[in-house]
């Protein structure tokens, strides 16, 4: 049974078909990349998977269960976490409280109104540990609005991880993060327990070819091809519409890993 599986998934915005007839499957423990030209529909696909958009056609199954009509928050509670391409954070909270908040919601305590949140020591400990893992611990008590962009990108991931997801969807997690740190970041992701499935969108081919075990290529809303990094790197169609010529070496490098 696949962690996530879509069938004929599609959405139109007016006359514009942003995603069409996508059959995508994510195995348990997958480390899968989703690449494609700008405007191919990658983010839209993630929005469909997480329930922000309702599809105009097709269906989505999560661990065998049909979730096509399930609201976004329920999907999240069932273990589907994501990050956003454009920072979507809590500007007036601190990173620490943001993560604690996410942990509360995961634990189903979001409606607890009769005791102070300060007493949630377990949640705070966990939050500290998580922030430390992403090297955000020094900034834990600063308002999020005052963090530099790159740090905010990291917090995006922290919030997703705080949900202890079973499926993690990352929308360009490393954009705006310096190269060495983005590698570290992907190490964190790679080190996640093996039963967690990860699907990530990324335009940095070094990262894609290094961390993905499988790559899906989306072009104009449709899956153009899928395969191992080596297969994708060799595919002339992918090169023509997406890769260009610059990344030949990175691909070859990755192929040796």
């Amino acid at each position, binding site marked *: 049974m696949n962690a996530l599986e879509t069938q004929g998934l599609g959405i139109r915005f007016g006359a514009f078909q942003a995603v069409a007839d996508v059959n995508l499957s994510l195995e348990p423990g997958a480390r899968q990349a989703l690449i494609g030209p700008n405007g191919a529909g990658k983010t839209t696909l993630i929005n469909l998977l997480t329930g922000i958009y309702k599809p105009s056609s097709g269906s989505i199954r999560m661990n065998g269960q049909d979730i096509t009509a399930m609201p976004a*928050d329920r999907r999240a509670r069932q273990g589907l*976490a994501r990050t956003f391409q454009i920072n979507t954070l*809590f500007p007036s909270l601190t990173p620490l409280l943001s993560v604690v*908040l996410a942990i509360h*919601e995961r634990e189903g305590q*979001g409606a607890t*109104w*009769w005791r*102070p949140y300060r007493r949630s020591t377990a949640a705070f400990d966990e939050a500290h540990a998580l922030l430390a893992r992403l090297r955000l611990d020094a900034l834990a008590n600063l308002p999020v609005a005052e963090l530099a962009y790159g740090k905010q990108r990291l917090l995006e991931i922290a919030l*997703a991880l705080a949900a202890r997801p079973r499926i993690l969807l990352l929308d360009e997690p490393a954009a705006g993060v310096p190269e060495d740190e983005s590698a570290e970041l992907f190490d964190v992701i790679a080190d996640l327990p093996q039963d967690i499935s990860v699907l990530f969108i990324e335009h940095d081919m070094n990262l894609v070819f290094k961390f993905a075990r499988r790559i899906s290529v989306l072009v104009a809303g449709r899956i153009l091809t899928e395969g191992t990094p080596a297969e994708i790197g060799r595919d002339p169609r992918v090169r023509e519409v997406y890769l260009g010529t610059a990344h030949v070496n990175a691909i070859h490098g990755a192929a040796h890993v």
Partner: protein
Amino acid sequence: MKTLALSERQLRLAEVAFWLLLASSFFLAPDHLTLLSQILIVGLFAVALDMALGYAGILTVGHAAFFGAGAYTAGLLAKHGWGEPFSGLVLALVVAGVLGYALSFLIVRGADLTRLMITIGVCVLLAEVVNRASGITGGTDGLQGMQVWPVLGLFEFDLFGKTAFVYAFCVVLLVFLGVRLMLRSPFGLALRGIHDNRKRMLAIGSPVEARLRMAYAFSAAVAGVAGALMAQTTQFVGIESIGFNRSAEILIILVLGGTGRLYGGLIGAMVYMVVHDWFADLNPEYWMFWLGIFLIAVVMLGRGGIMGALSRRVRAKEPAQ
């Protein structure tokens, strides 16, 4: 401009001092007890509004609907033979809370302006219903014939407003502590999250609308208690208690005090009502002019109301967790 950093302990002390000072006005300002109890009640109403507006981010100019619902509940109960004050409060709390929950379904969806207008609409409609049902409510003449029994069977509501003050003080303090607890709970944190970024809340699995509905119902219930308190201490309920003007006034009071800051409502009520009373005494015809100038001056001097200006001077040290 230097900011003064207060530790958590100092903040707590400041809070205690605030309430002690209020309590001591029983002895310090015995001639102003009625004004003081009305300030407390209006302050509680503003705190209730803050729960919806400042914390849950629901822009509403219709909160008098719940204040009025509470007032009429307590008033009708006392008119029809049951004048025990505490049970009146509890019933008002329940009625307003249920009404709030029911209306929340109309309100949590939609954008700010939409919510604003729906709350106004609902409030005006309710006022019109009260006007039409004059057989029960007395319409614009007001609800006559309330008989509120002595508090605890012992303390009559007296001419000097002593009983009213002590009664209002205790109830307001109690409810306020409840609100304070709620805002510092995981639920309160979730509200801050929703206020900041609804989309992200959904993504971390928070049922945003359910949370907002709950907050709105809480807020309505507290407003209902404030309304009931006002009815019991005035021993009269006028139709103004449910109208648009009261909703707008309480919004001004809260904004003056500062939204989303717990004490904003209380401080706003104090400043607004004292300043208003003072200007109205000095100049019964044109106090509006001075009050208007005052409001403009407050905005020009600092954003976020009085508490907002204060918070730029005084900053809580982040607790080391």
